[in-house]
């Protein structure tokens, strides 16, 4: 049974899921899903594997995820207190926020003058990459298994050897006049 409670691994996972869901939001996985806010239809960054990617050692952020989750919830608590928002303490503070409030916390953390901006942007980038590139999987496997992000984007399927080729690629005709100063070699004058 799924749980959004604030204990142990769940605390970290649900916090990271809520963070990832802020960048590429998705539909709730079950009716009382708290981590995914449900701000958009269809699968989002969480379903695309954002937490799995963040937990990949090659990212360089996997060792720090416990403290990142803790810091994020502390920022969320502070933000809620300063904005008069009451937090349900049965779930991590960031998870307790609405989508709009989570987005406001994100904007605060990545603002140009925020001292922790670099790390928050880094973990945001990986959440996007999980959806846009499935960087935790072989791309051919991601395509074959219907990865939500690459599928939503309409990323084409490769040939049987796992390589992409597009034999039809050109409208095949002149579509504009050349700059009058173009040199015989095709350079600007």
């Amino acid at each position, binding site marked *: 049974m799924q749980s959004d409670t604030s204990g142990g691994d769940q605390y970290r996972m649900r916090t990271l899921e809520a963070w990832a869901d*802020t*960048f*590429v*939001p998705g539909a709730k996985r079950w009716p009382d899903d708290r981590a995914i806010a449900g*701000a*958009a239809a269809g699968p989002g960054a969480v379903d695309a594997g954002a937490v799995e990617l963040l937990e*990949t050692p*090659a990212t*360089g*952020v996997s060792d720090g995820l416990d403290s990142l989750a803790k810091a994020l919830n502390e920022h969320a608590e502070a933000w809620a207190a300063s904005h008069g928002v009451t937090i349900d303490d049965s779930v991590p503070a960031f998870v307790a926020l609405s989508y709009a409030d989570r*987005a406001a916390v994100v904007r605060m953390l*990545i603002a140009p003058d925020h001292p922790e901006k*670099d790390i928050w*942007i*880094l973990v*945001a*980038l990986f959440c*996007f*990459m999980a*959806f*846009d*590139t*499935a*960087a*935790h999987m*072989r*791309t*051919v496997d*991601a395509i074959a298994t219907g990865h939500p*992000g*690459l599928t*939503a*984007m309409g*990323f084409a399927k*490769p040939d049987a050897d*796992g*390589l*992409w*080729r*597009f*034999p*039809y*690629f*050109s*409208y095949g*005709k*002149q*579509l*504009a*006049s*050349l*700059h*009058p100063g*173009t*040199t015989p*070699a*095709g*350079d*600007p*004058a």
Partner: protein
Amino acid sequence: MTTAERTDIVVIGSGFGGAIAAYHLAAGGAKVVVLERGPWLSTEEFEHDFILGSSSTRIFEFVAGRGMSVLGGNCVGGGSVVFFATMPRAPSFIFERQGSIGRRLFPAAISRETLNPWYDRVVEALPVHRQEWNEVTYPGGLWAAACRHAGHTANPVPVAIDTAMCTNCNWMMAGCRFDAKRSLLMNYLPAAISHGAQIRPLHEVQQLSRNDDGSYRVHYSVIDDEDYRIQTGSGAIDAKIIVLAAGAGATPVILQRSERTLGAMPFAVGRYFSGNGERLNTAVLNEDKVREVLGLSRPGGQAYRANQIGRGPSVASWDRLDASLPEFSRFSLEQLYFPPGLGTILAQAAGPDGPAWFGPEKKEMLRQWNSWLTIFTMSEDDNEGVFGPPPPSGNAVRISQQMLGQGNLEYKPTKNTLRGWAESDAAVKDILERDGLAKVMPWTNEVVGAYTVHPLASCRIGDDPATSALDDGHELRNHPGIFVTDGSAVPCGLTVNPALTIAALAERAMPGIVAAARERGVQVKYGAPAPGGVASATRAVDRTAA
């Protein structure tokens, strides 16, 4: 004093500046060692794969700075392995630019006319060719048609790509699996090796020192071939001449770190960095309007939906490369493709409170990814980048196992740069939003600052010692025998893709570097022809003569 390996010439970096130097010096008879911090991949190792650890992260580097992120190559062949091989010459007016210093930025000896013979050499060597319209990709054709509709011209760009071998897979940034891209792995580097040059991958130069006999000692670390954060060893090599070509994001950092051992650097080392005035706009096309307004359709009936198909840029509009316009108002607008991730994260959708790079509206924009058209501005920025203190090693603190690092480049765009960007944003919008063709938004600069795939000018040539680190022969001022031949030597943004100009300037510098080597007792002569078939023929002749 400890003993170190000795050679005639050490070349630091194996991109355009390093490969061209290695070839000419080795072909001329010098003992050449090339130290390259990245790995050495063969064609079969260039993967179509986004997974961390594949060639897309092994050979590519993204260094976030303070207001400027630099994207570049990290492998044998440098930028030429990961770039889009778009190679136009710089417009004539560029060589007359004054920037904000009130005097010509390029040395008096260099103009488009005087550089043309050196451009010709590189064009022959790679080779570079002018594309015909039937080689132009769907995104390039769409951009051309939109430009014509708005009363503008548009040109297929010159490229170093064998388009007959190209599959239009758009995986160029992970290296070319089909040997269609004419990277340095196909010409200068194998020719240099055939003349005896040694290339050592995963050797990251940290600093230089001077020996009592006037030669230089190059201190390097050996980098783990999978986790670039790990150094597996270190060493040093002595040479009479140093050719520094680690790229505009790394060359000044090596020199800054060497100040302790070499003495004061010229003021311009690590200053006057230019991001080539780069800026991106993403349009989401209305497919019906593409058909109705531009009359375009593909076999099978689709109007466009071809963002994924192609080979980076294939068409640019050069109408704003007009010498009569004021400086900082001139730019080219080039159709471009970046793969997902790099090409999608910073793109913005229209959100409820303004442009949004994340959230529900952005997700909806991603769903239309195949109808995207990305337009790349290259403009005249103000050389406002300054490198802060060097990190403990390399040019960045490496965060991830590969690809991602944090550097110390500070960049606060001036009013001049911002004006050029605003004018180019308006020009793109005017062309692509006409008659409802598309919705256009610039990429955000809020996340990683400005960004460039063409870092330049951080150790530049010039006639004025106060504002240039190198003389017009590319020799580092006050440090004879150290030459810089990479993009850091280019004095300013070029308004076009700079690879051909970097390469032409490196070619131009070679006779002087050979002469300097001879003065230091190296048995070397200048005069090797363009590499390629000619190189093997030359070697055969040499053998016969011997």
